[in-house]
C-alpha cells in the first residue's frame, strides 16, 4: 500500500482540533441550508445541505479516528498492535476521503442546476471507483477533490462577477483557499510541511465561511 500522509508528531493534536473546527463549520452550513430549505422548499438548498453534511461527517470520522489513535499512542498499555494501529488509521482516512468526495460531487451537482440524477450517479461512481481502485489513494483523492473544488470555484467566480459585492468575494476566497489547501495536500505524501500548510489554508477557508455565516444570520 502506498503512503497516505506524513504527519509531524507536534502537529497531530493541533490537526485534530482543526478537523473538529472544520466539522463544526461545515455542519453549520448544512444546518442553515436545511433551515432555508424548510422555509422555501427549493430542492437546491436540500442538496446543498446534504453536500455539506457529507463533508462534515468526513471530518467527524477523521477527527474521531485520530483522537482514538492519539489515545492509543498515549496509553502505556497498548491495546492495538502496530499493524492494527496503521490499518485503523488508513481505514479512517479512506472513509474521510469517500465521504468528502460524495460531499463535493453533491455540491457540484447542486451548482450545475441539473435535474438529471443519472449525471450525479455517473460522476459519483466514477470518482469513488477511481479512489477505491487506485494504488495511491491519498494522491488520487487530492487530485479528484482539487478538480471538483476547481469547478465549484468557477461557480463562485461567476457569482462574484454577477453580484459584484464583498459577500460573494468572501465565499470565493474561502473556496480558493480550500482548493489551494488540497493542491498542497497532493505533496503531503512526501513531506510533512505540506500537510501542515494544507491544514492552515483549510482553516483560513473555513474561518471565512464561518464569517459569512455570521453575516447571514446576524
Amino acid at each position: 500500500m502506498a503512503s497516505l500522509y506524513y504527519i509531524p508528531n507536534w502537529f497531530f493534536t493541533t490537526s485534530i482540533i482543526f478537523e473538529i473546527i472544520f466539522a463544526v463549520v461545515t455542519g453549520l452550513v448544512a444546518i442553515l441550508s436545511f433551515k432555508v430549505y424548510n422555509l422555501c422548499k427549493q430542492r437546491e438548498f436540500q442538496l446543498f445541505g446534504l453536500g455539506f453534511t457529507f463533508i462534515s461527517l468526513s471530518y467527524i470520522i477523521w477527527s474521531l479516528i485520530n483522537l482514538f489513535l492519539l489515545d492509543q499512542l498515549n496509553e502505556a498499555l497498548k491495546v492495538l498492535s502496530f499493524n492494527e494501529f496503521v490499518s485503523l488509521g488508513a481505514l479512517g482516512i479512506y472513509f474521510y476521503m469517500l465521504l468528502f468526495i460524495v460531499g463535493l460531487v453533491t455540491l457540484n451537482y447542486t451548482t450545475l442546476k441539473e435535474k438529471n440524477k443519472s449525471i450525479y450517479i455517473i460522476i459519483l461512481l466514477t470518482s469513488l471507483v477511481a479512489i477505491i481502485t487506485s494504488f495511491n489513494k491519498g494522491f488520487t483523492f487530492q487530485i479528484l477533490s482539487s478538480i471538483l473544488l476547481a469547478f465549484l470555484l468557477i461557480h463562485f467566480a461567476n457569482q462574484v462577477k454577477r453580484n459584484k459585492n464583498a459577500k460573494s468575494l468572501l465565499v470565493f476566497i474561502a473556496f480558493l483557499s480550500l482548493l489551494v489547501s488540497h493542491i498542497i495536500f497532493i505533496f503531503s505524501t512526501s513531506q510533512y510541511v505540506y500537510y501542515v500548510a494544507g491544514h492552515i489554508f483549510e482553516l483560513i477557508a473555513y474561518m471565512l465561511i464561518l464569517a459569512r455565516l455570521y453575516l447571514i444570520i446576524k
Partner: protein
Amino acid sequence: MNRKRNKLEIIRDILQVINSKNNKIKPTHILYKSNLSHQMMEEYLKELITKEFIIETRLKTGKTYSITEKGHEYLKKYSLIAEFTESFGLE
C-alpha cells in the same frame, strides 16, 4: 434597466401582493401586481399551493387566494433566504 427577478423574488412578490390585500385576493389582481404572464402566474400559484404557502378558496364569484402560516414565515425570513442564496449562488 432592472435585472430579471429570480424565482425566490417572484415568490416573495406574489406573497406580498396577497398579504397586502388583507390576505384574500383574486387571481386577476395577482396577475396585475406580480408582473407575470398568465401562464407563469398559474405555474407559480400551483407551486405555492403544493408547497402549502397559499390556499385556494373556490367561491361562486371565482377563486381567491390566502397566505398560510408557512407563507408568512417565508416573508418574515426572506432576508435570510436571500442572503444565503446570494452567498452560495443557489438561485
